[in-house]
């Protein structure tokens, strides 16, 4: 050690001086675990103050009572009973909350299927067909840039295209395919699904692409050499190996759609109910315990979906 430092001292005196200070301060140096705490602590505090504690408050307040204008901190199941009002009486018909959840789940499944299809093939193209790294970067960036721009703008951007006098309608009218403008293009379930796919396919592309670029290309070659067709390779090699990405992407898309109230509000013309919109409506009516009860229900259902999906794949291992 000493001799090597002597040599270093000659070659680069500054560095060794640094090493002396380093050695001197060693005694006073903080333990590694304390440094880890210092480094990770601030982020942990933010999550504690603005995520974990608020979640606890949501659960607590969901069991509070309320009147027209304020919270009453006394135990009550009113938030829940109000939410499920009439659910038993109306059987076998679904009550409002039941219908809303069925509707939300339906939207979820539609958006999930479409984003999965688009996301899979976009990722496949980027991962397997684009050979040059520069092009791969450039095209991935092209897919990412809209994610950095405003969601609301990307929603209202459909208005000039889908509106009553929009491009699609006027095009169809001119071509004589229809006699009067299609009303279901905008402020409808169709436009909600379209906008959700438009906004959130990104969340499917990224994880699937991530899984796909990690697939060893020689495995695919081996499959071809062993006589597999392109389709067989896809089903037996690529899809199983891309599964973690597919599951992570699916978790993102499903949880986003389950909790969405903005896209459904703006693109549905504030007419379509959803799990997220119930919460917003209750908050606007200052019925916080009822809003919190609905949030707890949504949280439980989302959690169940994620647990089911993460049985298929260990998320932590994939990052």
């Amino acid at each position: 050690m000493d001799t090597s430092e002597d040599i270093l001292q000659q070659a680069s005196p500054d560095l060794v001086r640094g090493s002396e200070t380093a050695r001197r301060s060693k005694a006073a140096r903080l333990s590694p675990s304390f440094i880890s705490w210092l480094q990770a602590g601030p982020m942990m505090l933010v999550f504690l103050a603005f995520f974990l504690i608020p979640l606890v408050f949501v659960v607590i307040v969901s069991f509070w009572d309320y009147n027209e204008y304020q919270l009453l901190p006394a135990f009550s199941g009113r938030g829940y009973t109000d939410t499920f009002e009439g659910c038993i009486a109306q059987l076998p018909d679904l009550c409002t909350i039941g219908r809303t959840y069925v509707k939300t789940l339906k939207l979820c499944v539609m958006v999930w299927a479409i984003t999965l299809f688009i996301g899979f093939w976009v990722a496949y193209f980027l991962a397997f067909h684009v050979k040059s790294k520069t092009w791969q970067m450039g095209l991935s960036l092209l897919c990412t840039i809209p994610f950095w721009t405003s969601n609301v703008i990307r929603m209202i951007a459909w208005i000039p295209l889908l509106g009553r006098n929009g491009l699609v309608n006027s095009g169809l009218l001119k071509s004589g395919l229809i006699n009067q403008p299609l009303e279901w293009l905008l402020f409808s379930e169709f436009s909600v699904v379209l906008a959700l796919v438009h906004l959130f396919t990104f969340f499917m592309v990224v994880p699937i692409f991530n899984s796909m670029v990690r697939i060893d290309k020689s495995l695919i070659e081996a499959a071809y050499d062993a006589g597999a067709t392109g389709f067989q390779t896809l089903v037996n090699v690529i899809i199983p190996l891309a599964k973690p990405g597919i599951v992570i992407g699916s978790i993102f898309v499903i949880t986003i759609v389950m909790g969405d109230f903005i896209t459904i509000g703006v693109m549905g013309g504030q007419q379509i109910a959803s799990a997220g919109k119930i919460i917003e409506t209750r908050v606007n009516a200052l019925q916080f315990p009822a809003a919190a009860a609905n949030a707890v229900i949504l949280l439980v259902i989302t959690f169940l979906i994620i647990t089911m999906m993460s049985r298929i794949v260990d998320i932590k291992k994939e990052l």
Partner: protein
Amino acid sequence: MTEGRPRSFYVLAIFFAAYVLFLYGPMIAIYVLSFQGPQGGLTFPMNGVSTFWIAKLFQGTGIVDLGAAFRRSLLLGIIVMIVTVVLSVAAGMAFRRKFRAQSILFYSAIASLIVPSIITSLGISLEFRIIDDLIKAHWNENFETSMGLLTSGLGAHLTWTLPFGLLIMFAIFNRFDPRLEEAARDLGATPWQAFRHVVLPIILPSVIGIGLFGFTLSWDELARSSQAIGAVNTLPLDLQGLTTTVTNPDIYALGTVISAVSFTVITLALGTIHMLNKRQAAKGSDAGKGLV
């Protein structure tokens, strides 16, 4: 695999191009429409070309005080960006060693990312309401509210940007060669020197990427702000408010101005990243390339 391009390449290339058109087409449509003439409506065809609607926005004759919202959003975005970068880099460094509560932090970040925004937003708003009630009951009866842009609003945005920052740090350190840092330490660098002169320059392009996420996600944030921002509005909230009432190209002009800021930030960040990468490639060491 085979010589030349397989047919599936062309099919998927067209599919990809269609997807990109689907992504950008509608956005470009409203950028174009915001340059409508004064008589223009919400849809094509264009009724003349002018900057009438954009100018009108800046005259402040619109429905809401956009200038103030603009400044608020900008301020919040910059603060969120700085905090996101600092906390993410620090926490990312911590994750290179094992420490207790590691998995708690990891799962908090993942949960914060996927728990529906409306729930986080509602939770923060309840938390601050309860704090307000406590202050009113015990200390100051005239207390208004602790909710605001830089308290609950900042917190709400951070629950959205920090997970992205942390995940980007994971991606960086997955590829990072720890021997570089060891070499620095062997040469006598203090931990801070090793970070400042070795680690940071290498990860800097990605750190700028974190900043880009921090600012743009905050600048456009809506769902989490909705319940947690307090009395004032950010720009996206104003824009969302306009969607139900406005019937002229005002809203497109506002959309174009908001997007212009996003695109400026994106261009600046990507340009800087590109420049840093190029400099790294040009001045990079030949370490690991074998002995001559």
